[in-house]
């Protein structure tokens, strides 16, 4: 059967398919890292972003495409993590805008809405870079739209769309030298392809294999159960997912009708996604009565896995809380600082330096826009300065700032831990003038360079330098500067290349993988070598980077 029009239900189910597919493939996307070190997280970020949209879409009790796509977009804007996540959320925000006033859409309207997504996404970044998710999406939209005729079906549209997505993705190394050098395609683009292919699978009725939620890789945040108490009303039902092993003792497996099974689930729930994989039925359904669903399923077989989550709880936790939380009673303070950091030592240092709230996050774990919003609520100040301290978190922070209207949010463009440290250590709000404080913070970051030492997990060639797996590489200003068989010589090399002798202060931040004695010795050696430079050791406790070196 050819689906001619896209309605809200189908859109929500397609998003679920997209989310399942990126979840399944997120490690592949993570590994598309220009640096040969285990700090890629694009797959995780995109999965968590689309999942946030998916949850919001599934909670929308309407079949209207306008409402469902708007809910999904809002969920994604809040859930956006990392630059790719932010751009992804902007694409869907543009699409939702394109669906305004549409209870459903034909292929032409779909194409127009997708085109809207292009301009929206390009508008999200100050300097759009070609060879990224932006290009991949734009190319595919332009290609698919050029082939739309009066008779086009959604299937045909998505066929063309995904075909060009893949082709454009393959072209990204031609557009972006850093990808070509590293021998990878753009990770954000690749993540996007998986999402759209997952959406297309639902449209085509093709199985997207899905694994358990507990699979490694992504840490799910703990749900705050306090938001559902003895007086709460169950509004949103349960998100119920299970793998059901059909049993020949209960049913004739060969003649098992998945459509009947699915129809029944639709009668007692919604957002139903059902696949048959051999003799295993995979189910996702939102229902007020999971017991009925489980009882029904058990008539056909036995459960391999079951996951049931209270969506009212999730909803309170994720969505409502932020939009409808009562204003805090205590008076706002004038200024507050939200900083992003990971590693116990770095977090503590940032707190000591005066950060009002430290959002857990960094290279491997990008916080969502919503995490920032939560932090803003917590800080509750008239003006809040935000230090993202990572180039891949900057956009998310800005997105959160745009979404938040209870305070004047000012994102200081700190791209490294060193930037953040510099801005924070010189922070001074004595003037009481937000513009002046902001200018001081930005000025403090000038001339600060952050170097990182991490271990390569694969061979690579970059910046004219060959790196073998297992070597320690020194990274600074987005480039690999050196590769050495051991940590200490990598640090020594990087220090030399970054002209440590001309620096006033050098802070060596020890990561969790570097031994204390080694760090202390290194600190003493560097101090002896660079007599004019103050060498300070800080126990950062960060993962991935054995050392972070801040040069001032």
């Amino acid at each position, binding site marked *: 059967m050819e689906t001619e029009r896209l309605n809200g239900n189908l859109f929500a189910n397609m998003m679920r398919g997209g989310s399942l597919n990126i979840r399944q493939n997120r490690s592949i996307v993570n590994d598309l890292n220009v640096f040969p070190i285990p700090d890629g997280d694009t797959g995780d970020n995109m999965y968590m972003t689309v999942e946030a949209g998916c949850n919001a879409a599934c909670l929308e009790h309407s079949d209207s495409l306008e409402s469902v796509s708007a809910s999904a977009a809002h969920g994604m804007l809040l859930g956006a993590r990392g630059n790719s996540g932010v751009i992804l959320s902007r694409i869907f925000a543009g699409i939702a805008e394109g669906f305004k006033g549409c209870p459903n859409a034909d292929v032409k309207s779909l194409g127009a809405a997708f085109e809207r997504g292009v301009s929206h996404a390009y508008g999200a970044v100050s300097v759009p870079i070609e060879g990224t998710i932006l290009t991949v999406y734009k190319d595919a939209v332009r290609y698919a739209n050029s082939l739309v005729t009066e008779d086009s079906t959604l299937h045909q549209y998505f066929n063309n769309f995904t075909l060009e997505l893949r082709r454009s993705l393959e072209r990204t190394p031609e557009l972006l030298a850093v990808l070509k050098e590293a021998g990878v395609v753009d990770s954000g683009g690749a993540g996007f392809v998986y999402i759209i292919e997952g959406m297309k699978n639902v449209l085509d009725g093709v199985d997207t294999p899905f694994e358990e939620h507990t699979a490694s890789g992504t840490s799910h945040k703990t749900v705050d159960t306090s938001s559902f108490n003895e007086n709460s009303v169950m509004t949103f039902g349960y998100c119920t997912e299970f793998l059901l092993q059909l049993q020949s003792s209960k049913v004739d497996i060969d003649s098992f009708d998945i459509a009947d099974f699915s129809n029944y689930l639709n009668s007692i729930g919604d957002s139903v996604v059902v696949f048959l994989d051999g003799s295993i039925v995979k189910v996702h359904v939102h229902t007020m009565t999971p017991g009925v669903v489980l009882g029904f399923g058990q008539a056909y077989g036995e459960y391999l896995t079951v996951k049931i989550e209270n969506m009212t709880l999730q909803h309170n936790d994720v969505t409502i809380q932020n939009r409808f939380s009562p204003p805090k009673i205590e008076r706002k303070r004038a200024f507050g600082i939200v900083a992003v950091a990971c590693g116990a030592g770095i977090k503590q*240092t940032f707190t*000591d*330096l*005066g950060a009002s709230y430290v959002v857990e996050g960094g290279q491997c774990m990008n916080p969502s826009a919503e995490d920032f919003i939560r932090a803003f609520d917590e800080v509750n100040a008239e003006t809040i300065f935000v230090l993202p301290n990572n180039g891949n978190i900057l956009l998310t922070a800005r997105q959160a700032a745009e979404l938040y209207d209870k305070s004047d949010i000012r994102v200081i463009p700190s791209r490294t831990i060193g930037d953040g*440290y*510099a801005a924070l*250590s*010189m*922070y*001074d*709000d*004595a003037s009481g003038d937000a513009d002046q404080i902001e200018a001081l913070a930005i000025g*403090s970051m000038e001339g600060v360079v952050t170097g990182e030492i991490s271990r390569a997990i694969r061979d690579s060639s970059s910046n004219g330098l060959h790196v073998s797996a297992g070597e320690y590489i020194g990274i600074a200003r987005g480039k690999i500067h050196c590769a050495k068989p051991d940590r200490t010589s990598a640090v020594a090399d990087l220090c030399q290349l970054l002209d440590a002798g001309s620096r*006033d*202060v050098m*802070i060596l931040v020890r990561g969790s993988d570097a031994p204390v004695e080694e760090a202390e010795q290194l600190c003493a050696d560097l101090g002896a070598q660079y007599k004019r430079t*103050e060498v*300070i050791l*800080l126990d950062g406790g960060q993962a991935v980077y054995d050392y972070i070196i801040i040069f*001032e």
Partner: protein
Amino acid sequence: MYTLFADTDCDMTPKLAKEHGFKLISMPYSIDGKTIYPYEDFEEFKSKEFYDMLRGGVTPTTSAIGIDKYKAYFEPEFAAGNDILYVHFSKAMSMTFGNMDAAVKDLLEKYPDRKFYAIDTRCISIGGLNIALEIGDMRNEGKTAEQIVEWAKTGIYKFATYYFADDLKFFKRSGRVGGITATMGTLLGVRPIIYMNADGKMVSIGKERGRVKALERLLAYVDELGEDIDKHRVFIAHADSGDFAEEFISMLTAKYGDKLDIHCLLLNPTAGSHCGPNSMGVCFHAKHR
């Protein structure tokens, strides 16, 4: 005839006191409940030992001297028929002067013909020392105690002291510095810049990252506020951070040639207990503080 007194909080040492004709009052500090009177309980201040102890985590406290101790300093002079001019460290920084006032009151009742003059330098450390030595010069030129007291009404404000510290935990504990905010906890190379204000209080007026910027900022203050600096002593004190002091002296020399009368000394342990090891400061003749 009057006798000059100064105290160890003003970085006055027995040697300097002898050279410039001062009697010395020892201002104590305590470690683990043991009170130590500089130059009474030891002959020579072993700064490295002392500041290393602070680096190792010991945080001394400072204490006031008692009425009897003041009497023991002052009474022999009154008994010998001498008046007293005491050039002391900032009254705003210690409770000790209540005891001094009580002691002096008692003594003046006993020796009604004697006079006691006190000059509050509104400084501590080298600021107080610079003023005291200036006053020593004036006494040698034959100025009376009254003339000096009159001079001090404006003269003391012509000596500016600026310094930076390395570790704020000493300030935080002693509570002796204004303007130190919660945002100044872990320093990691960030140095708060502190000066003695006209009320005789230490006030933080900003911070600089790194030694070079901190030293440059001190030099900028000398430049901006300095007045006849080559006609008065320039004092530099450091809390066991001689390399900072040396660097600063060479910066001063590069800027002003060798016409400055620069004296470098160790920050006394009592003041050092407030600002901690690796602090460094400069006192110079200025338009104002």
